[in-house]
């Protein structure tokens, strides 16, 4: 691949990922409000809109996040008198950037072969030519990069609490740091069983393994349960939202934030939800893998559509142009991520908040030992299979 193709394709992929993320975040704000309204037998927000040719356009409340963003941009950016100005401004940036950065290693489709764009790929054999991996960065550390960035996210919350010069913020920051550092450990360990089976740390190879064999959730259900719990705790959302417990801490570590800085925390939280779902999709739900969709097109177990209608013979063996396959895979990925996000919101509106010591107990006394057990059990089974 020459440099120009590399640069252009990478820029296009970054653009695509950013568009996806920044579409998901506001839609998620809307989804959370409307979904909670539906759960709680309310109508929900639906009023924000504008008048166009005398007709009011409301789009079922989809414009509320837009109004929110406008409001946040125009609000006063308040910094407390004794706050550390640099750190105070830096904290939301760290939170947001680490949340977005995680997407760099998540593959959203199979490798794209430029020469085959409009033709079907051969069913078997290796394909040569310019190959563009459909993820921003192909890192051999893969998932470790994700954990590293998630670990850096702790810094954002902690700094926000420290730099605000507010005891509630400080307490919130401490809680956030304690909770996130603890769950970091659990989060990594829950996935070790999967790494052992997939035999790789690269997310794209994990998806390929699941594409060839079976989705991760069927071979590591316990790991999925533990991962999902730990990951929700990592995003600091209900039922694990003690860092911002408004009944005792006002607003936690972002008490002293206003305007778009608060908006960045807000958006960071939602992007973390998307990241969590994207990771769960990649590791447990086969990523871009759509059953019956192979790299050459749809696969009907060797059968093909072959019949004649009114003298016209119809024959279709299911092969699709490469670009259609890639588009279908991307769509599959997005749909899977959306479903998982929906499920997360469902959890968020179903469960009450844990007490802080309960959160810690859950992490160290239940998730961590269970994750270790899962690793041991997976190892034993793998050994037995190899024998």
């Amino acid at each position, binding site marked *: 691949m020459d440099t120009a193709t590399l640069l252009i394709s990478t820029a296009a992929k970054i653009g695509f990922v950013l568009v996806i993320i920044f579409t998901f975040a506001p839609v998620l704000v809307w989804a959370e409000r409307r*979904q909670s309204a*539906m*759960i*709680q*037998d*309310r*109508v929900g927000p*639906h009023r924000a809109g504008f008048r166009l040719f005398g007709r009011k356009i409301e789009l079922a409340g989809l414009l509320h996040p837009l109004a929110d963003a406008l409001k946040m941009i125009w609000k006063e950016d308040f910094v407390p008198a004794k706050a550390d100005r640099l750190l105070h401004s830096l904290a939301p940036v760290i939170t947001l950037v680490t949340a977005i950065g995680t997407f760099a290693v998540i593959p959203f489709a199979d490798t794209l072969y430029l020469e085959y764009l409009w033709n079907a790929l051969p069913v078997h054999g290796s394909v040569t030519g310019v190959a563009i991996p459909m993820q921003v960065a192909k890192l051999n550390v893969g998932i470790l990069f994700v954990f590293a960035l998630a670990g850096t996210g702790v810094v954002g919350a902690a700094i926000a609490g420290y730099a605000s010069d507010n005891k509630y913020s400080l307490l919130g920051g401490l809680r956030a740091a304690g909770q996130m550092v603890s769950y970091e450990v659990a989060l990594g360990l829950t996935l070790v069983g999967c790494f052992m089976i997939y035999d790789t740390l690269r997310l794209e190879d994990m998806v390929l393994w699941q594409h060839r064999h079976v989705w991760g959730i069927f071979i590591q259900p316990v790991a999925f*349960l533990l991962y999902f719990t730990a990951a929700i705790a990592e995003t600091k959302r209900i039922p694990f939202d003690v860092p911002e417990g408004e009944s005792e801490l006002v607003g936690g570590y972002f008490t002293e934030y206003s305007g778009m800085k608060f908006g960045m925390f807000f958006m960071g939280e939602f992007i973390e939800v998307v990241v969590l779902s994207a990771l769960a999709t990649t590791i447990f739900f086969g990523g871009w893998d759509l059953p019956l969709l192979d790299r050459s097109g749809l696969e009907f177990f060797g059968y093909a559509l072959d019949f004649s209608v009114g003298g016209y013979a119809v024959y279709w063996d299911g092969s699709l142009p490469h670009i259609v396959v890639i588009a279908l895979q991307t769509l599959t990925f997005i749909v899977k991520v959306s479903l998982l996000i929906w499920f997360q919101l*469902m*959890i968020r*509106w*179903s*469960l009450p908040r844990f007490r802080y010591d309960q959160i810690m107990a859950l992490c160290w006394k239940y998730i961590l030992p269970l994750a270790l057990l899962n690793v041991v059990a997976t190892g034993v089974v793998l050994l037995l299979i190899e024998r």
Partner: protein
Amino acid sequence: MAVVKTKVIRKPKRTIAEQAFIPEIAKGLGLTMNRFFKNTFSRPENTEIATVRYPEEQREYPERFRGIHRLTHRTDGSPRCVACLCCSTACPAQCIHIEPAEYQPDDPRYGYERYPEVFVIDELRCIFCGYCVEACPCDAIRMDTGMHMPPSTKRAHFIYDKETLMSIPGHDGTYVTGNLRHEPGDPSHPGIDREQGH
């Protein structure tokens, strides 16, 4: 040392399923999902949504809802009110101001009734208790308009004078009530007649 009798209250026992937490989470999720699907995907009349899109959509008020006041009309269009001041006396908020006046001597009602020259209700003071309606012997003041006060930014807009009060129809759209009104001089008039003498 006195022996203090204590009653030991034990924690309610939890079953293993409750302790395991996951079945309970599943139950809770089941409940919320049930609501979600019911309210999102069923037809509007089958949802259980309790709120409405006010002001586009309004709930019906009960029949006896006490809205803003109105002064009922006689069949000739004059107010039924005889300026007896019962309502303003009964009013706990003292928001009704009436200035009674005598009819002209050639009017058949002269000597029998008075009429309100000025009838003003301060709707901002009114507590909508309905005592004025109860006190009225002539069915002249009613709160059956089914409206609440139109909002305004000016206090003056809430001082309703006689003409305003008479311009508001009841919720059935009529100004004249169904209750018969016996004018002085009518054979059905129950009071002492001028011809009968006092």
